[in-house]
């Protein structure tokens, strides 16, 4: 547990059965993510990255294989146990934000605390939510409703919600998918700041330039991991590619 590995997947398979058809969405993924890493999970649609993300986020269970989270096997837990794991270990950031409509930023951020282990007073809820909102740079907008916030601000509220329970891992599923490029950069900067504070981040994206904010990129295709590159390796690879295409470079 103290070897720093937060997420460990061992030969993970996920097979969906739709009628007669069997769909092998994930076919044998083994992966380790250490505490404090910032990983981008990449791949085209149908590559199995969303399925893998659902399993990593304990929203779904693998068909076979092992998922060791923080030293404990979570591959065979039931619905309620998975819900508790999600509450304690993960913070979720979604492409479409998934904030409650007609609800203040503060109440949205408080949401995971309501399903937590501890009964908090309204004052405690408020204090923690306001702190999380301030940490994503939205202080002063605690009472704004979802509809009164821009897309970038909504996503920041969602990040604050993801952070409120001090999660082991923040899972972000295409967090910039609904944002313009300038706002996307702001969001990625927030992720980098969080990562610098030691928070483990796992992000699904299909955009190369968004993935480049993450030091480690994992590429999936046809349900298996094709490439798992750290930033330095990526740099070398890019340089090599450029050398190949333009041999005149010194």
């Amino acid at each position: 547990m103290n070897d720093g590995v937060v997420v460990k997947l061992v030969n993970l398979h996920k097979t969906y059965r739709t009628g007669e058809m069997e769909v092998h969405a994930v076919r044998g993924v083994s992966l380790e993510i250490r505490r404090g890493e910032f990983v981008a999970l990449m791949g085209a649609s149908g590559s199995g990255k969303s399925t893998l993300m659902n399993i990593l986020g304990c929203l779904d269970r693998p068909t076979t294989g092992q998922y060791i989270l923080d030293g404990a096997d979570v591959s065979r837990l039931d619905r309620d146990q998975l819900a508790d794991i999600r509450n304690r270990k993960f913070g979720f950031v979604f492409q479409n934000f998934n904030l409650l409509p007609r609800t203040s930023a503060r109440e949205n951020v408080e949401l995971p605390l309501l399903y937590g282990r501890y009964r908090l007073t309204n004052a405690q809820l408020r204090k923690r939510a306001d702190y999380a909102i301030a940490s994503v740079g939205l202080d002063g907008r605690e009472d704004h409703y979802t509809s009164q916030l821009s897309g970038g601000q909504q996503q920041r509220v969602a990040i604050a919600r993801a952070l409120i329970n001090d999660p082991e891992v923040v899972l972000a599923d295409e967090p910039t998918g609904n944002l313009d490029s300038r706002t996307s950069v702001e969001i990625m900067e927030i992720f980098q700041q969080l990562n610098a504070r030691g928070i483990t981040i796992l992000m699904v994206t299909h955009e190369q330039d968004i993935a480049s904010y993450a030091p480690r990129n994992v590429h999936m295709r046809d349900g298996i991991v094709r490439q798992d590159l750290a930033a330095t390796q990526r740099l070398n690879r890019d340089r090599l590619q450029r050398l190949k295409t333009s041999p005149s470079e010194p």
Partner: protein
Amino acid sequence: MNVGSTFNVAFRSLRRNKMRSALTALGIIIGVAAVIAMVGIGNGAKAQVEAQIASLGQNVILVFSGSTTSSGIRTGWGGAGTLKIEDAEAIRREVPGVTAVSEEVWSNTQVAAGNQNWFTRIYGESADYFDIRQWPLAEGAPFTAQDVRSANKVCVIGQTTATEVYGNDNPIGQVLRVKKVPFTVSGVLTNKGLSTHGVDQDDIVVMPYTSAIKRIGGGTNLRNINVQVADAQQMIAAQQQIIELLRQRHNIRAGRDDDFTVRNQQEIADTATATTDVMTGLLGAIAGVSLLVGGIGIMNIMLVSVTERTREIGTRMAVGAHGRDILAQFLIEAISLSSAGGIIGIVVGITVANTIALTRHWPSRISATSIIAAFSISALVGIFFGFYPARKAARLDPIEALRYE
């Protein structure tokens, strides 16, 4: 997740949709208000009827003389003079359990005092009459058994007669001329109000039956005999014995019809309350239908709400809500709507019933039982109609719910 948080979550959701919550509750408000008001009015009517019947006196058996048939025309009860004063004496003497008997004759007559006159009903009774009918005097004294024996010219008058004949003067000791025979008013009865048939019971003059027969005239036959029995258990036996005694005295052979009719006050009461019970039941049933419709309204809105909030449910599950948390949330939302509707409905129902009582003069009686029942039913409606949508929400798959558009 603990109970307090679940309530918190449910109330926040209701507050987010104030208009929808209010309209959903409105269905229940109308349903509960209708039940409360209708049952209240029904019970009020029943209580009124019961009070009027109780005013006949307690444990009273009424013996009416029979009808005559003359040239094919039947006269109705009391038409034939089949009851004699001796019959009443015999009942008083021979039927066990009888505590009081009043021989009754009556006629409608003009009465006068000074320059005022009035058309009223004259009752001839025994001195027991006021006890049997539980009708105390407002002032003065009733006539006595001695007055009955001597056929003295004394009488007691009702409130209406008193005001109509004497106005604001005190009638006690004054002279009342009945068919030109001067009677002395010895007392005034208390107010008794309208009878079940809408007749003013206070428009009356009561005098010894002997005086009525001898001084006013009209034969020696009794219209009916009022008999009071010591307690309710003896009613049936006493009634039977009266029938046997009178058949024997009137020489009626076996197989022939009675020439008199015996009724007890309970039979009259049962008929009357059965009618009002049916009315109350009907009103309540109609109101109950509107409560049912209100419940279906809640289920409808909750189902729409579950579909509309699928992504919210997915989000809640993603951040750690158990299926039972979601179930509890939606169930509490439904129950809160129906209970709030129930409480408001009770207030509205009481207001409506009281308003009707004031403006239409229909008495209403709202019992604690009907309030508790209405509230419990409204809460149960919430549970019953909220459960299916809530379970549907709780069984959603978080992955699909999160992606729902």
